[in-house]
């Protein structure tokens, strides 16, 4: 066996063990409680009982409705925007396009906080309608009560829209323009050309983005929690978490969610696997943007403004709330102040939470870089059936709800279990770092794999020919060439981990260990000006993520969509 082959096997073994220990095992533990009774006997009664329970069934039905509707809405807006910006030089494009990712830069529950301010009974929307004479002050519209499910769907869709947009935008960038031109020369135009030529070419990305959106929507926790929509599976699991060890139905719900998520994920991959060969679909030159004039330009601009405006609405509301002295029964706040920022900074929970988050996230990104690069190297440089299995396993966190993962980590760290010494109640650092790392692993793997596949192996072979060992070759040749990709993937993983909600709410139980998202959630519930202070911290997080995103965009450009590929 050559040194290189031994090294490959060694690396594969290390990666496989890490994935088994911190991904497969917690997942197995998370669902084990659904099938084992307190006496250790196997049983299917709990899952069956969960399926017979009308409340759990309603929760599951609502979760599916939220997932499907929010993914559909995200698809319509995301694909529409991607096509518009890919084909036309829409007026205002330069300023509006960078705002599309805004919903992604805010934990959805913080966005929901802003939406409550807008859609409350005495909120900005009702007040505006009243000022316009469209509504009587005596009979305002109770948007959040009458349309609670719609509010949850809308907010979740807003959050998912950029994922679909970037995924499709990236695919459109690589569509061979000549194919579309050839179709046009044969009389195939407009919607027909899109349906016959463009859509089949971008279908894998559409499926990829949609399935991520579906899974995300299915397991979304923050938005339903803040909108008081409790009859949904994610909230039922969250509420039942404190029953760990006693409530087998929570385990059963976890098993059901995992099954649905993995089915969606597997289905999407199967569809993508049947996509047209990539070699046909390679852009040879950039598309010339069409110029719009008159009414069409105005219409396109209005569509863009509406989409971006709707997407930015929660962010705008959070900014206004953070800066408001009082915002009650008026369209805009009646006064502005920086007091809430001062209160946030001076709150004893906040600075430690920022420090904690930075510590957890830096460590998790370091772990992601090591593990993600190793996996990408195995997949790209040493392809085999095992490498493909590892690749699929590394993508699994996209399909697994954060809740389920957190549940699994709690289960393997209870008293008497092998990881009891890492019990998150005492110190959540190890499992928060692992949870963040596992959740964002797919981003880093895809980013590293994209970089590695662009680096010619001839350079590495030349180095090897000159006597450099595999490690030295990687360090001196490969790493500098893939560094921009790794860096971009790492920054993205960093930013999204910083605002990870599910793991943070569940695994951090002591104030001194809270990360930012849990601090925002705690502040949100404080009496007095808690919500404004929470909004101030949310605004800080939003700015931080906005600049992180702009940085990644400046490195990756349109290839940013590759990060969301399955």
């Amino acid at each position, binding site marked *: 066996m050559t040194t290189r082959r031994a090294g490959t096997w060694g690396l594969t073994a290390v990666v496989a063990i890490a994935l088994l220990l911190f991904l497969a095992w917690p997942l197995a533990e998370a669902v084990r409680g659904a099938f084992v009774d307190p006496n250790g006997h196997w049983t299917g009664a709990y899952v069956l009982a969960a399926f017979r329970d009308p409340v759990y069934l309603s929760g599951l039905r609502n979760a599916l409705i939220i997932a499907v509707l929010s993914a559909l809405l995200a698809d319509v807006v995301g694909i529409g925007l991607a096509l518009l910006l890919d084909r036309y030089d829409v007026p205002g494009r330069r300023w509006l396009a960078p705002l599309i990712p805004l919903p992604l830069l805010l934990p959805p529950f913080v966005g929901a906080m802003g939406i409550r301010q807008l859609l409350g009974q005495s909120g900005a929307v009702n007040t505006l309608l009243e000022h316009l004479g469209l509504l009587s002050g005596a009979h305002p519209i109770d948007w959040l009560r009458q349309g609670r499910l719609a509010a949850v769907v809308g907010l979740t869709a807003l959050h998912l829209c950029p994922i679909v947009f970037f995924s499709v935008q990236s695919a459109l960038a690589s569509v061979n323009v000549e194919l579309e031109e050839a179709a046009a020369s044969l009389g195939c135009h407009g919607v027909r050309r899109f349906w016959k030529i463009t859509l089949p070419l971008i279908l894998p990305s559409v499926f990829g983005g949609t399935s991520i959106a579906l899974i995300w929507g299915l397991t979304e926790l923050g938005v339903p929690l803040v909108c008081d929509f*409790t009859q949904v599976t994610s909230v039922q699991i969250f509420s039942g978490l404190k029953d760990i060890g006693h409530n087998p139905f929570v385990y059963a719900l976890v098993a059901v969610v995992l099954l649905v998520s993995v089915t969606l994920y597997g289905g999407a991959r199967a569809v993508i696997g049947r996509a047209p060969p990539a070699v046909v679909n390679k852009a040879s030159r950039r598309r010339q943007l069409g110029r719009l004039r008159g009414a069409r330009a105005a219409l396109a601009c209005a569509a863009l403004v509406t989409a971006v405006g709707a997407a930015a609405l929660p962010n705008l509301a959070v900014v206004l709330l953070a800066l408001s002295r009082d915002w009650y029964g008026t369209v805009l706040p009646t006064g502005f102040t920086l007091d809430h920022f001062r209160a946030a900074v001076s709150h*004893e929970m906040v600075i430690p939470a920022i420090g904690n988050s930075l510590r957890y996230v830096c460590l998790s990104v370091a772990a992601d870089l090591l593990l993600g690069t190793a996996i990408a190297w195995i997949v790209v440089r040493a392809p085999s059936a095992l490498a493909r299995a590892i690749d699929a396993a590394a993508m699994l966190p996209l399909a697994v709800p954060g809740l389920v993962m957190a549940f699994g980590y709690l289960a393997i760290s209870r008293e008497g279990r092998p990881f009891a010494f890492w019990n998150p109640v005492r110190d959540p650092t190890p499992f928060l770092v692992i949870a963040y790392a596992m959740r964002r692993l797919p981003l880093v793997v895809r980013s590293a794999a994209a970089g590695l596949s662009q680096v010619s192996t001839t350079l590495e072979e030349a180095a090897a020919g000159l006597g450099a060992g595999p490690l030295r070759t990687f360090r001196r040749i490969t790493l500098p060439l893939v560094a921009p990709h790794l860096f971009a993937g790492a920054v993205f993983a960093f930013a999204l981990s910083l605002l990870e909600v599910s793991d943070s709410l569940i695994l951090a139980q002591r104030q001194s260990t809270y990360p930012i998202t849990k601090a925002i959630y705690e502040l949100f519930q404080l009496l007095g000006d808690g919500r404004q202070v929470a909004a101030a911290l949310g605004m800080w997080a939003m700015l931080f993520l906005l600049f992180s995103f702009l940085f990644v965009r400046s490195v990756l450009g349109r290839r940013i969509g590759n990060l969301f590929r399955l």
Partner: protein
Amino acid sequence: MRQRAIIIAALLAVLGAPFAARSGRRAAPPTSGAAETLVVLTPHNQAVRYEFGRAFREHMARQGRRVEIDWRTPGGTAEISRVLVGEYTASFQLYWTQTLGRRWSSEIASGFMRAERPRAAEVGEARQAFLQSEVSCGVDLLFGGGSTEHARQADAGRLVDAGFVASHPEIFGPAGIPQSVGGQPFWDARGRWIGTCLSTFGICFNRDLLARLGVGVPTSWEALADPRLAGQVALADPNKSGSAATIFESLVQAQMQVSGPEEGWARAVWLIRRIGGNARYWSDAAAAIPLDVAGADAAAGTCIDYYGRSQQATAAAGGHPDRVGYALARGETVVNADPVGLLRGAPHRELALAFMAFVLSPEGQRLWSLPHGAPGGPERYTLGRSPILPSLYAAGGAGGGEDPYREARRFGYRPEWTAPLMPAITFVIRTMCVDTQAELSEAYGALAAAGFPPQAVAAFDDLTLVDYQTLSGPIRQALRSPDPLDQADWARRLVRHFRAVYGRARDLARQGR
């Protein structure tokens, strides 16, 4: 490149801003390197944690000891209770199987923390072994959560006698804190928990919304059943919030005081269904209610006294004294002692006793009621709560204008009527109102729209499956069963039943019958 440099600079500026702003302020007290740590499990909010943590640290520093409190906050009272059950079960299972070498079973798991005499001898042995053990959950004290919850923890064997009552006759003697007032215990006769402050309950309301709806200020639980408040009453789930459970216990007790346990329960169900029919939501967190009322998201909501008073004060401080109000449910509220108790196997017992002594000293008691900044009062937050030391009321100024001792004497609490049934009562509320909120609201709305026609009202008030006999018999038994499927069966049965009941009432109301 220049653009990228600007972005990086902006990123670093955002990241560094909070730290830079903080560096100009007084440094937070050191949280590490303390010589001793006290671990406290609590549902108290951050303001209470901050003030008591700071004051106790300073108090101990005066005695030459460096102390820190490690606050554990897994959620509200209900979550804390479930965490304690989980931790003690895991800990005792290890002790039973590894130290004692005995076999573990589901009967032991569900029975060793039950106070009643067990049927199986092995469960009885496990119960005795637990009560004689120093099995620990790694936490010293349970601080806050209400006396009902503390009594439950004590009966389970998770709270133990700290010897504090016996060793402090000056606090618990004739001139000190009475053991009970109006039937409401202020400390456990066996010393396993001790009240530290007193709470009453009432209704917070938004005057603007009430005016718009043409509804007067609600001052009783029954006022929340006014059909004009449809979708406007914010409620907390008594299965998740300790204070919400106490509010519903008050409501049930108040009805039982009028007509005895059996008839009183029927009257309570009548009232709870109507209030539930007006529910805007059933929150997990009781603190969300006054916030939503203040933000005009709900017209009224039930809450603990200091939540209501605090939100009223915040609105007044912001120049809007007429926006939010709070009304005590006079004569209909229990006066609940909010206790502290020593947990079994507490790793820092001596420090825990020092904390108990501090909280019950005049120095600790003043933290509850004095405004922040007042000499001897809290430093940063006004807690607005009623201390338990009667001497502070004699001196005047405590209790936010209300004397909870007077209120306690007015409300004659009969614990035997509701305390043993509380798990069953909250379970019924869950299935009757929380899990069926949409159907209940729809039915109640239809009844109100049709002017409460008699047949529809009779259908709506159907007591089948939740009459007093079923509540105190089969439902209570199912909740105590070691098999979780028994409880699940009842939950499923009740939810289906209530959906059918509300559907029938709605249809009859729409037909005007």
